[in-house]
């Protein structure tokens, strides 16, 4: 026993325990990452690029090779889709024109539906999966800022949580930590009178066993049917309106039985995220720390 518990070792052990616990507490309480961490993360991400580019290229060629097999079937399917697309496109053009005219008449500045996208690649993902984060190769020098929504395959996957010069980290929606991702969302459907009715709620949780997102705090009593699309509502302050989150899979009552709860099948495939789009909302974003919203700018 003497070999293990000399005085010097106990002192070292106690000091190191205190140091580690204070480090952990410090990281939990601080909201913005400090300079040292940002710098080392940037350098690490830069080296990671060198590792991930070759593997990405190999996987791309493998995907192209396996796609060749399905081309005939896919071609038939796509031709059918294309016919329907022409109709939707002309409808879209008409609506867009009308929207533009109305905006000019009312002299509106940037609406919450407009946004610009930036493409990026995934270079790394957290291997231990308790904190689900990916690292992408776009940083502040490309115009990425904190809390921007990120989509992949036309479905929302998360928002940026840390931005360095040449890389950034995206916290995914599949995190179980409740405060990480609360996204204001809406379901646009039709009620009995054939009018479009918008139901607002909050996508806040992820059910690991069924692999579905949960939308809660639905205030209205409107009927939500399965198969309807859930999109972002833009009311949260930093996300634009209209980004697809998923489709409704199951509607039920929540634990207290007071309001409805919707299980959403995500539109993006969280197991296979390779290329992402970072979305920059054109309208003024409301910062949580601000006391009053800033003046609208062009």
């Amino acid at each position: 026993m003497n070999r293990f518990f000399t005085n010097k070792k106990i002192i070292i052990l106690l000091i190191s325990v205190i140091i580690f616990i204070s480090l952990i507490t410090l990281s939990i309480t601080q909201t913005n990452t400090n300079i040292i961490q940002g710098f080392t993360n940037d350098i690490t991400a830069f080296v990671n690029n060198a590792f991930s580019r070759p593997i990405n290229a190999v996987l791309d060629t493998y995907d192209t090779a396996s796609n060749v097999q399905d081309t005939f079937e896919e071609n038939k399917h796509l031709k059918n889709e294309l016919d329907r697309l022409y109709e939707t496109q002309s409808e879209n053009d008409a609506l867009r024109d009308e929207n533009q005219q109305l905006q000019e008449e009312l002299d509106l500045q940037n609406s919450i539906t407009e946004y610009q996208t930036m493409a990026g690649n995934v270079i790394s993902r957290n291997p231990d999966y308790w904190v689900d984060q990916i690292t992408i190769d776009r940083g502040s020098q490309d115009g990425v800022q904190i809390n921007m929504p990120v989509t992949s395959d036309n479905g929302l996957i998360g928002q940026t949580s840390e931005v360095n010069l040449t890389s950034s980290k995206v916290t995914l929606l599949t995190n179980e930590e409740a405060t990480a991702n609360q996204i204001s969302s809406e379901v646009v459907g039709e009620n009995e009178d054939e009018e479009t009715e918008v139901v607002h709620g909050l996508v806040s949780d992820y059910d690991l066993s069924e692999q579905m997102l949960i939308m809660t705090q639905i205030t209205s009593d409107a009927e939500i049917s399965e198969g309807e699309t859930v999109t972002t509502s833009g009311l949260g302050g930093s996300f634009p309106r209209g980004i697809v989150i998923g489709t409704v899979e199951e509607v039920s009552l929540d634990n207290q039985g007071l309001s409805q709860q919707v299980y959403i099948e995500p539109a993006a495939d969280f197991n296979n995220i390779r290329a992402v789009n970072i979305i920059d909302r054109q309208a003024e974003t409301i910062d949580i720390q601000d006391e009053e919203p800033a003046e609208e700018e062009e």
Partner: protein
Amino acid sequence: MKAWKLVLLPFLSLFAAFMLEGVIAAYFNGVLYTSMGYVAPRLTFVLLIMFAFYLSPNHMYILSIIIGFLYDSYFTGYLGIYMASFCLVSYIVMELKDLFKSGLLTYSLVGILMITLLELIVYWIFRVIGVTDAGVSIFLANRLGATLLFNGLLIFALSPLLEKFSLFILNERLSNHRQF
């Protein structure tokens, strides 16, 4: 020349393993989601255990702190979790290496024990902080079994190579160390 090799090679190989882990988790996530559960690739940790059998204590602690800091900062953002776990595991392995005869089977068994310890410590700290709220039974069923299996096979398959690599770093011969 020998000093450069001793100082640089462990750090570079640990860094390369750490990059590879991130890349594997990013691109092969579908493969890692087996029917038995989710497999967490722990290459860095396996390398760390093997180095702990051979390098001197001071060198080992400095390596664990640096690599633990990089791992924490790049992957989780909560500093101190992996740093503490890596230092603790290096200490335990360095105490254990004198008790057992060194050989390939020892590396694998100690490796499996240490990986269990690491997973338990990390899960427990994340549970206390509030990052995850999965119960212990879910953790055991969904993660621990598959991770242990995969990483146990990994360390069993890689231990001859890693042994040769560590001896190459230290410029020593196999017969001085292997006892069975």
